[in-house]
């Protein structure tokens, strides 16, 4: 018996090895692209962050001096603070609104009205952020649509240049992000709800549960994965935001809407301090990971 098992095992092992090899072979094109466009630029970024370099001329090794500047410069730290405020608008509002809207749309009878509302909600998602930023900056202007609507409904005293006002600029920019991302959240939640076992809903309804009870005990737990994915995506969008700010306020007024993305762009391309810009970029990446990894962990922990 033993004599016949050993060769079979060896054959199985070599088959497995061949399988692994074949697997790697299939992965090669993707790996090459990944190394060329992710790993290599990231490695270069880390390398640059230790140099004082203008992007063209000779460079000088400066150790951690660039990182020291990132952590001691009040302007740069302030921009990180603004990015965290944006999480409220890019993550909390869209995810909450998406949950509610998806539940409401699900309760509609499937038909033209339901698909129309889905399409309308998703539309902002297909508009490039830069274009959305420009369109919104017109609507937010002193004579723009927002102030016209306010005046029309008797709230004219609230009218102001929303993007030019120190108090309202950051929330105004943040709401553009909410407008764009709510559609994405709603559509993803809708597909998620579709996958929840309908018998669960019937069960709680037989128990006489209210709409709210149903929402909390069935819908939200059932959408845990979607929530984790959306929170991850939107937190990243908030912390690394660039296009909306660039097309609406350029970080102004003052530094009210300055975010890391704009700072990095300016330091790297306007001031030509590639080392400092790289260091800030690496810090931003670390920050994004520090926020996103716990979310992943939480989603997994609650799965068990």
């Amino acid at each position, binding site marked *: 018996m033993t004599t016949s098992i050993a060769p079979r095992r060896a054959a199985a092992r070599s088959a497995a090895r061949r399988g692994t090899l074949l697997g790697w072979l299939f992965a090669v094109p993707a790996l090459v692209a990944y190394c060329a466009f992710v790993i290599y630029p990231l490695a270069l970024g880390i390398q640059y962050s230790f140099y004082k370099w203008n*992007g*063209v*001329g000779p*460079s000088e090794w400066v150790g951690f001096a660039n990182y020291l500047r990132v952590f001691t410069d009040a302007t740069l730290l302030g921009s990180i603070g603004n990015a965290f405020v944006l999480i409220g608008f890019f993550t909390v509002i869209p995810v909450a609104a998406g949950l509610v809207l998806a539940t409401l749309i699900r309760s509609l009878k499937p038909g033209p009205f339901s698909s129309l509302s889905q399409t309308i909600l998703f539309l902002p998602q297909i508009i490039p952020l830069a274009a959305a930023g420009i369109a919104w900056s017109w609507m937010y202007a*002193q004579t723009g649509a927002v102030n016209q609507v306010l005046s029309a409904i008797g709230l004219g005293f609230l009218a102001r*240049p929303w993007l030019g006002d120190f108090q309202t600029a950051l929330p105004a920019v943040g709401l553009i992000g909410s407008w764009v991302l709510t559609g994405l959240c709603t559509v993803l939640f809708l597909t998620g709800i579709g*996958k929840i076992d309908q018998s669960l809903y019937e069960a709680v309804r037989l128990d006489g549960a209210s709409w709210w009870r149903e929402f909390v005990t069935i819908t939200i737990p059932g959408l845990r994965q979607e929530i984790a994915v959306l929170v991850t995506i939107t937190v990243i969008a908030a912390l690394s935001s660039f296009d909306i700010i660039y097309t609406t306020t350029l970080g102004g007024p003052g530094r009210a809407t300055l975010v890391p993305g704009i700072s990095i762009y*300016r330091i790297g391309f*306007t001031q030509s301090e590639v080392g400092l810009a790289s260091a800030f970029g690496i810090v931003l990446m670390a920050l994004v990971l520090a926020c996103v990894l716990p979310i*992943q962990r939480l989603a997994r922990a609650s799965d068990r």
Partner: protein
Amino acid sequence: MAFSRPRARFGRGPVAVVAIAAVAALGLAGCAPGGSSPTATNSVEVSTELTTDPVVLTIADETGFPLTDDLAAEFTKQYPNVTFNITRDTFANLTANAPKLLASDTPPDLIRLPTIGDTVKDGLLANLDPWFDAYGWDKWSEAQLAPLRMGDDGVRGHGSLYQLGLGYSITGIYMNTKLADQLGIKNTPTTLAELEEDFAIAKAGGVLPMMEGDKDGVVNFVVQAAINQYADPKELMDWILNVEGATYDTPGNVKGAELIKKWADAGYFPSDINSIDYATFVSRFQGGEGLFTFNGNWAAADTQAKMGDDVAFFLVPPVEEGGNHVAMGAANSFSVAAGSKHLNEIVFFLNWIHTNDKARQIVTDVTGAAPGGDPSQTQPKVAPGSLIENALAMSAQIAAENGQVDFMANATAGIYAGAIIPESQLLVTGQISGQDFVTAVQKFYADELAG
């Protein structure tokens, strides 16, 4: 069951990627990024004769300024063997990409370059000194050329010539004379105090005293105009040219900035100033909003076309009656790439722009700017009584009174976006004092120069 879907498993991935990248970075650490410091030597023999071979010259210019198109067309008409390939990008993109464009294997022969920055140190710009001698540019206005020079110490204002201007600009104040008549204002102000009186009259009469915008920092035409009247022009110029030890924190600068704060508190600026950009404030002034606006000669032709005779253009008045005028003005500066394959040809083109009557006429017609070159040469023809005629006279007056200063925004590559715009947005809404403004700008300047 809905609850047993496979778990998302990208938890540990990012950390691994960063770790791999960090290891790779350590591998790269042996070699420092960037080239060695090159020595700029012009590789061709200087000639003032234009070749008869067919040549294509490339120009990188900003979007929205058609001057180079018109000049190139006229040049090709006169010298058919030379044609042009002109690419355009927005001002912000062009200035951000300029060093990389110049360092590439196929740099543009001529490039719009507002600030020299590190480009001379990195050997990216052609030194124009040999042509200066060959063409005899010593007859040209040295005051206009000085800011286009840079010394070995990295300080502008002296040393070798690295740029030339396609037109030399001048700034001042536009006044809506129709509104002035309605308010009973007869003449353009001749002192700063008179200007302030006019602001007050306008405010009391329900007219916006001045139409300005600061979304993109253009209110600094006003901020610097005020500073110019109190600052020592030499000190201010030294600061802009990065002379060692020069500071922005001078009593004159503070006084000028405090005046802006006073105007902000008095409500002389539009209430939505921080959401108004250049194009918006120009069109709103041309549409009849605001008694005054601070702008440059480049807006003269367009403003005249929109407002006809209802507009005046004049120099910012000095503090004392009859005092010397000080105004910002600068070359619309272009540089030749050190790596250009057609150095003699492109410099011939630059010399032609400054000396050929037709080219000089195009510069003035398109931009309203003085064409520079030899002051004794015939000046371009302009319509009598037009704003452009005014602009040329203002340029001449500033030259005679030696009152031209460069724009503060040209002091360093990053200062406009990094300090002047955000701090002026605070200043013109009265949120910081003049002293705060001056201190913040100086701090950014010192940090940036220290790198």
